[in-house]
C-alpha cells in the first residue's frame, strides 16, 4: 500500500485505560495546538497489542494501552514482526472494589468468605466437593442472609486475574483449602488453578461487558455484589455501597499505600521507532507522564486513577527519556 507519514498519533488497546488515555489525549490536543488530538481506540489489551505487534511503520499504531503487562509470547511475536524496540510505561494503578446496592447494610468482606462463597469446589471434611453454599450467611453468619449473587469480571478482563490472585488464591490459603488441594493435585500450576476456579452454577455471574453492565445488574438485583473499578465506583457512589476488604475501605489513599489489597498496575507500550517520526508522539508520552496528568492532584487522579508513588513516577519519566526498552 501507499504509506504516507501520519500526522496523528494512533493509540489502541485496553478499555480500562481508555478513559485515562482519553483525558490525556484531549488535554494534549488542547495544550499543543500544533498537533492533532491523538486517536484512542478501544479494543481490549489483547487486541491492542496485536495491532501493536503488526510491525513498524506509519500504517501501524504507535501506542498500545494495556491493563496488564505484555506477555512473553506476545513480546516474541512483536519482535518477530520487527517491533524490537518497545518502551513500557506504567501510568498508575487501578483499584478494584466490591460494592452492592446503596440501600444495603455495609459489607465487610475478607478473601476467605469470598473464596468460600464463589469457589467452584471447596474443602469439606478434607475432601473437595462442589460448593454447597447458597447464601452468604451460610458462609459466614455475619454476612447478610441473602442468596449469593456476585457479578465478577469475565475471563476476558484483566481484572479477573487480579481478582483471582488477590482474593480467591488468598482466600483459598486462608480457608486451608490450598493444602488439601495440593495433596490431591500433584501439578503445582493445576493446583493453583483449582484454587481460583469460580463456581458455574449461576450464583457467580461473569460480566464480559463494562462496569455499566455490572451496575445495571445490581440495580435489577439489589442483593448482588459487583466488582468495579475505583473510578467507576466513585462516579456512582450515590447508587452503590462499597464493601471493605480485610476491614479497609478502598480509596485512592489506601490503595496507593498498599493497605487495600486489590489493585493492578496500568501500562502503555510505545514503539520507540515511531518516536520522533510520528509528530507529537514523544511530546504525548512526556505529557502523559507529567505530574500534571498522573500526579496525585491531576485530572486522572480526579477521575479515579491511583497515582503511583512519587519515586515510581519519577523513575518512569527517567526510564522513558533514557529510552529504556523491554
Amino acid at each position, binding site marked *: 500500500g501507499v504509506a504516507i507519514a501520519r500526522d496523528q498519533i494512533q493509540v489502541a488497546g485496553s478499555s480500562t485505560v481508555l478513559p485515562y488515555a482519553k483525558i490525556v489525549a484531549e488535554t494534549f490536543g*488542547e495544550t499543543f495546538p500544533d498537533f492533532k488530538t491523538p486517536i484512542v481506540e478501544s479494543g481490549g489489551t489483547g487486541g491492542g497489542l496485536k495491532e501493536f505487534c503488526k510491525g513498524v511503520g506509519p500504517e501501524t499504531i504507535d501506542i498500545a494501552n494495556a491493563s496488564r503487562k505484555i506477555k512473553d509470547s506476545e513480546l516474541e511475536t512483536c519482535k518477530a514482526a520487527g517491533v524490537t524496540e518497545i518502551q513500557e510505561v506504567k501510568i498508575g494503578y487501578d483499584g478494584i472494589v466490591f460494592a452492592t446496592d*446503596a440501600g444495603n447494610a455495609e459489607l465487610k468482606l475478607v478473601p476467605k468468605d469470598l473464596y468460600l462463597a464463589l469457589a467452584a469446589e471447596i474443602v469439606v471434611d478434607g475432601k473437595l466437593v462442589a460448593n454447597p453454599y447458597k447464601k452468604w450467611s451460610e458462609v459466614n453468619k455475619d454476612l447478610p442472609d441473602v442468596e449469593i449473587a456476585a457479578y465478577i469480571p469475565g475471563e476476558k478482563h484483566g481484572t479477573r486475574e487480579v481478582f483471582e490472585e488477590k482474593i480467591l488464591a488468598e482466600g483459598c490459603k486462608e480457608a486451608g483449602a490450598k493444602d488439601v488441594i495440593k495433596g490431591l493435585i500433584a501439578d503445582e500450576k493445576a493446583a493453583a488453578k483449582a484454587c481460583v476456579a469460580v463456581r458455574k452454577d449461576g450464583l457467580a455471574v461473569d460480566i464480559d461487558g463494562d462496569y455499566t453492565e455490572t451496575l445495571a445488574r445490581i440495580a435489577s438485583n439489589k442483593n448482588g455484589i459487583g466488582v468495579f473499578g475505583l473510578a467507576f465506583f466513585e462516579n456512582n457512589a450515590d447508587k452503590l455501597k462499597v464493601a471493605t476488604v480485610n476491614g479497609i475501605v478502598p480509596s485512592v489513599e489506601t490503595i496507593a499505600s498498599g493497605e487495600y489489597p486489590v489493585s493492578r498496575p496500568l501500562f502503555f507500550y510505545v514503539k520507540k521507532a515511531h518516536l520522533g517520526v510520528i509528530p507529537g508522539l514523544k511530546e504525548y508520552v512526556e505529557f502523559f507522564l507529567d505530574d500534571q496528568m498522573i500526579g496525585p492532584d491531576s485530572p486522572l487522579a480526579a477521575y479515579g486513577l491511583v497515582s503511583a508513588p512519587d519515586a515510581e513516577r519519577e523513575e518512569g519519566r527517567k526510564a522513558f527519556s533514557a529510552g529504556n526498552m523491554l
Partner: protein
Amino acid sequence: MTEIVSSSSPAFVRPTAARRDIGIKRRYAAERRFRAYGMVAIMTGLFFLFVLLWTVISNGYTAFQQTTITLPIEFAEKVIDPKNERAANPSKLMTANYPLLVRDALVKALGIDPKNRAEVKKATEMVSASARMQLRDIVIANPSVIGTTVNVSLLAEGNIDSANKGQIDLAVEESKRKVNDQQIGWMKTLTDSGAMTKDFNTGIFTFGASSRPEAAGIGVAALGSLYMMLIVLVLALPIGVAASIYLEEFAPKNRLTDLIEVNINNLAAVPSIVYGLLGLSIFINFAGMPRSAALVGGLVLTLMTLPTIIIATRAALKAVPPSIRSAALGLGASKMQTIFHHVLPLAMPGVLTGTIIGLAHALGETAPLLLIGMVAFVVDFPGSPMEPSTALPVQIYMWANEAERAFVERTSGAIIILLIFLVVMNLGAILLRRRFERRW
C-alpha cells in the same frame, strides 16, 4: 334442498331452502381469531417499539439541555499576554492561561476569598475545563477583546449539569456525591442571579468526542455515519440488485448457482464482527487503507448489508408473475429490457424494504467497527471518509460505558439522534416504496 319448484307452486313464493351447514360460525370465529392475531401481532410490535422509545426518550430528552454559566470574563492582558509578544508570536495566544480568567470571574461572582485555595478549586471545578478552548477561540477570532470584559456563557461541568437537572440525588450524604454542599449553594446563587441557566444543547450535535460530558457531542460520529451510509447506499444497493438480478434471472440453474445462493444466505448469518476481521485483513492490511476511516467502515458495512438486500430482492423478483415477463418478451423486448422495464419496478417495494432493513442494520452496528479501529476517541472532524472518525452506534456504545452520570442521559440522547437519523434516512425509501406499491 331445493325442494322444488313445481308448476303448482304459486309464483314468487319461495320455499325456504334448508341451508347447508358449512360451519359458518366456527369459520367466522376462526376468521375473527385470525384477524385478532394480526392485530395483536402489530400491537405487540408497536407496543415494544413504544416501550423502547419511551425508555430512550424519557431518559434522553434532558440531554438536549445543557447548563451554562454566564460570567463577565475580563480578558486581562496581564494574564493572556503579559509580555505583549502576541504580534511577534501569535502562538502565544494559543497557550495562554485562560482557566485563570475563568477562575477570577468565578471568584468575583461568588464572592470567594481568592486565598482560600480549596474553595477556589471547588468553585472552578463547576465550570467545564473546555472553557479554556472556548475563551481561546474568542481571543483568536478577535484579539481586540484583550483588555475588555465580556459576558461569556461557559458550559457547566458535567456533574453540576446533572445536579442542576436533578439527576444526582442531593439527599445522599455529601461524601457520596460528586457535587458537594458548597457547590450546591453556589449553584443556587448563580441560578438566582440569572448566571446559571439551562439552554438548548447545541453542543451535543456539533461537538466531537470528549472525555468531559458537557463538551461531548456526536458531531464526528454523525459525520462518520453519514459517510458510511452514503458509501453503503451507493455500493450495496446497486450491487445487491445487480447480483440478485443475475442470480434470479440469468444464472443457469445448476449446482454452482445453488452454491452461490446458499452462500449468500449463509453470509447473512456471519456474525458482524467477522466482517470486521475481513475488513481488517483485506482493506487495511492488504489494500493499505487507513485505520479508523469511514471508508473502510463503509466498505465493511456494505459487505455486511449485501446479503440482506440480495435476499430481499430475490424474493421480490420471484414474486413477479411470469405473465408479465411473457408479455414483454412476446413484444420483442430483450430479457434485460423486460427485467429493467417491467420486472424490477414491480419488485421495487421488496428491494426498498431490503434496503431499509439493511441500512438500518448497518447504521446500528458496532462490532465490525471495533476491529477496524472505529471504536475510538476521535475529537477532530473528519474532512473526508479517509480520515479517522467514529460512528453513531459507536458513540452510543462508548458513552454507555462511561462512568460519569452525565453520560447516562447523553447515551439516550444519542440514541434518539440515531433514530432520527434512521428515520430521515429511510424516509426517502419509504416514500419511494409507497409509489411503487400496487396490486394487480
